[in-house]
Structures are given as structure tokens and as C-alpha cells.
């Protein structure tokens, strides 16, 4: 189900297929659909970041509302979980009309780790937050990560060498958003390489397509 939804998002980002509707892949009232949205995070709404917002009161809104209600961050939730949830909330605010009901408020997510994590740990966390690499989302996080660009690039190198395509694609997507990626990294070829090597993995492909569509990097 996650793979199908990820493929649907990637297809929409490439401008192929029918106009995007999240509710075509993930239906309301389905607990698994909520779980899938939790995994995809803000990416569930990524196609709406392009141009066409969802219509008011649509099924997409209901499906997202259900997911947000099903998985609110617990008090002891990790920073990654909170950021991921926050990403979906931010995306809902930005890309869904909201109708009569207000969306949940944007939760505070800790970011002290951005400055203090050793680079391998930082890279792992950031790759888990790949869905936040969308225009307008998590701007403060993007600003803070800019100072760790070289470390994220090192994480990309390590991930590709370990053939951890999902981590590599997530990091590559964030690097595509950051302004000063070291040229010797070869980010564009790297994203293309990861896409070819991942054997068609839907989530990896989604990250690479997002990097290309939103930030013009990779192929």
C-alpha cells in the first residue's frame, strides 16, 4: 500500500497519469491508510505543492485528518517523529484548504541535534525526514541544516557505498534543497545512480523524483 501510494505521488510529480488525488490510493476509514500516510508524511500531499491544490472538503482532507488524529505525537516521541508529523501538518496547512475545520496546530519539534549530532547520526535522522524537503516546509530546519551541508554530503557518500538507497535518496533530496552542496559530490549523477541502482523501489524513486521536480537536481 505504501509502495503504491509512493508510486502514485512520484507519477504525479513527473506530471504523468491522472490528476493526483491521495484518496485514490488511500481511502478514508482504513487504518492501514492512516499508517501509510504516517510513513509518507508530507509526501502524501507533495503533488499539491506543484500547482493544483486539492478542492475544499474533498476526500483527501478527510483521509489526512484521520491520519493526523490516529498518530498524534506522544509526549516521549522522538524528534524525528515530531518533525515528521509536523511536516504533514505544515503540508496540510499549505496545500489543503482546511474547510470549516481548523487543522491541528503545528507542534514544536526539537532541533538541537542538528548542531550536535555526529555526522553519521545526523545523516540517518535527516534521511528519515526526506519528506520535509518540499518547498516552503520546515524552513527553519532547512536553515539550520545548511550549516551541516558537508556532513550530509558525507552521509550521502556513506549511504551509497553501503547500498542503502533509501537513506541515500533521502539525503540527496535534502542536499538538492540546500544551497552549497560541494561540487565534487556529484549530486546530480549520484541521484541518477541511486535511482538506477535501487531496482525500482517506490520510496527511493519518489525522493529522487522530488529532488528533480522541486529543486532541479539529479535525473
Amino acid at each position: 500500500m505504501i509502495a503504491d501510494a509512493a508510486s502514485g505521488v512520484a507519477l504525479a510529480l513527473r506530471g504523468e497519469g491522472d490528476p493526483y488525488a491521495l484518496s485514490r490510493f488511500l481511502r478514508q476509514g482504513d487504518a492501514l491508510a492512516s499508517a501509510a500516510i504516517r510513513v509518507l508524511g508530507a509526501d502524501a500531499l507533495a503533488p499539491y505543492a506543484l500547482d493544483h491544490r486539492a478542492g475544499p472538503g474533498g476526500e483527501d482532507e478527510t483521509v489526512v485528518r484521520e491520519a493526523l488524529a490516529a498518530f498524534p505525537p506522544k509526549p516521549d516521541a522522538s524528534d524525528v517523529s515530531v518533525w515528521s508529523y509536523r511536516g504533514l501538518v505544515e503540508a496540510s496547512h499549505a496545500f489543503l484548504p482546511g474547510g470549516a475545520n481548523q487543522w491541528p496546530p503545528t507542534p514544536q519539534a526539537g532541533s538541537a541535534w542538528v548542531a550536535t549530532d555526529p555526522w553519521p547520526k545526523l545523516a540517518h535522522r535527516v534521511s528519515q525526514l526526506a519528506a520535509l524537503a518540499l518547498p516552503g516546509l520546515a524552513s527553519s530546519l532547512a536553515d539550520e541544516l545548511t550549516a551541516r551541508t558537508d556532513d550530509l554530503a558525507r552521509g550521502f557518500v556513506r549511504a551509497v557505498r553501503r547500498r542503502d538507497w533509501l537513506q541515500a535518496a533521502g539525503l540527496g533530496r535534502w542536499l538538492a534543497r540546500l544551497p552549497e552542496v560541494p561540487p565534487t559530490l556529484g549530486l546530480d549523477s549520484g541521484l541518477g545512480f541511486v535511482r538506477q541502482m535501487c531496482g525500482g523501489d517506490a520510496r527511493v524513486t519518489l525522493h529522487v523524483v522530488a529532488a528533480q521536480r522541486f529543486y532541479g537536481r539529479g535525473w
Partner: protein
Amino acid sequence: MVTGGRGDPELLDRLVGDSLGWLDGARASFRLPPNVTTDADPNLTLKPLGELAELTQLIAAAHPRADIRERAAGLFDFAWRETGEGELFAELVRGEPHATYPVEIYGAFAQAGRRHAGVEELVRATTRLRSWRVARDDHTRTLGVLNAERRIGLAPHTDFDAELAQTGLGRLPEPWALDRKAAYGVTHDVFHLTEWGRARRRLSPEHAGYLRLWLPAWLENWLAEQLWDLVGELLAVTACLPAAPYDPVAWQRLADAQAADGSVAEIGDPTRPDDPAEAFTACYHSTLVTAFAGTLARVASDEAAAGVWDGAGAMLTGCIPCESETAP
């Protein structure tokens, strides 16, 4: 977290000292057999002895501690004696006049002033041939040959910089595309370029910047694979950078891989094969590399303590003892 300042001299000196202790005890295994110039496997005879000479000479010249220098110098002298004070190379060149390895190994002795007039007369004849200048498959190896020519005082058979530009360092390849063989290539590009850390300023700012960016990622990969000789080589390359960074975690992991007897296996945990010959083959290279890398890191650490570098990686004061500005 990588620190840009001082290393841990105590840990580094223990690593180097214990490695040299094991190497000293392994002299019998470095000894050349009577059939060395005929049917012995050079990978088990000349290669280990050549490495012993190359790396102990550097340690004997560069290490700040006299006891360590003395021990390394003893091993270097032993290696020279094993070659019959150079006579071996005359035999090797007469046997294989077009092979590069006798010239490369002799170069390690020649640069330290251990010379043999007969060998030099021979190699002047063999290296002036057009055939010596035919391009070799491996550009990194060609840098090694060029370095040997320079050490012996022969004319370079091709242009060093042009050759460097073709290598895994010169091309600045995508850092994520580096496989194991390419990694050994990059480390040796640096060793040949910098005269094994003696002339670190030959590393261009562009190459130094590339290495400074990507070495931490490569180290992390090969630490995970416990490939200790490559870990040691990458740490040695790190120590060749201006204002060299010091990675305490990587050094501690290398120290943990050193067995109580001072040996470091090429791969895996510190358990050793029971057979002494197998144990020697499994350990001599990594143990030498550990002593070499620890020496370069110690020199870099002393420089950091003495404030030799400014914040931008430029050298503020004069040369360190082993730095040489001779052109390649």
C-alpha cells in the same frame, strides 16, 4: 566528532611503539629466502621487505621520540642488510631488466642515502630505453615509478603532474563511487605525491580540499568493514592534510584492533591464525601501516600544538623536520 587540534600523543605513541615491537620480533619472517631472485613469490618476500624499508625509514626520520626512531632505524638497517647492502637489486635487475619493482624498492633505500653504485649503473641503462617509457596500465603505480626515479636521481620517464591528473586523486571522482581498489589507489596517489608524508605541501589546495571533505565518509565505511590496513592508510592520508584533522573515534577503533602482541590484522578482529607464516602474512602490512599512520598523525599533532597552521590551513612557521621542498 573530528577535532581539528591536537591528537592523542599517548595513544599514538603506544600504537606505533607496539607495532614496531611486533615487527622487530618478526624479523625472521621478513628475512629473504635463498631463492628470492629465482622462484620465490615476490609478494611474500620482496614486497614485505620493501614495505618495511619504506615505512621504517619515514618513522626513523620523522618520529619525535628518540626510542621509536631508534627502533625503526634498526629495522631499516636490517632491511638494507637483507638486500646485501643493495647487491640483491643488481641481481634482480639483471634477471628482470624491464621490471619496475626492483627500481621502486631500491628507491626507498636510495632516498635515505643507502646506495649501490653497480645498481645505479644498471638502472641508468635499463631506464633510458624507449621501452621504459611505454605507458603502464596503472597510473598510480606509474607515480611510484616516477618517485623512485626521482629518489635515485634518474630522469623522469614521463611528466608527474600529467600522470597524477589521470589518477583517482587527480580526477576527483565522485566520492560515493570509490570502491576498495580505487581507495587503495587514492591513498597511494597521496603517498607518492607527498613522498610518504615527507613533502605534504605538494598536495594542492584542490586535492587537499577534496580529501578533507570525503575522507571521513570513506573512513566510516572501512571502519565498519574492519579493513584495518585501509583504515590505517586513510588515517595516514588524513595526517598529510594541512592542519590535519584528528578523528579520535577512528584512532581508538584502530587501537582496539591491535592485538596484545602489537600486531594489527588486515581484516577483522584481533584473533590470529595459529600458523606463524600465515599470521605474518595476515598482519605485517597492517602493522606497518599502523606504525606509519601513527607517526604522521603524531607529527601533525605536534604541529597543531605548536600552532604551525593558521585557521585557514596555511602554514605559519617554518618546516617540520621531515618536510622537503624538493620538486617532484
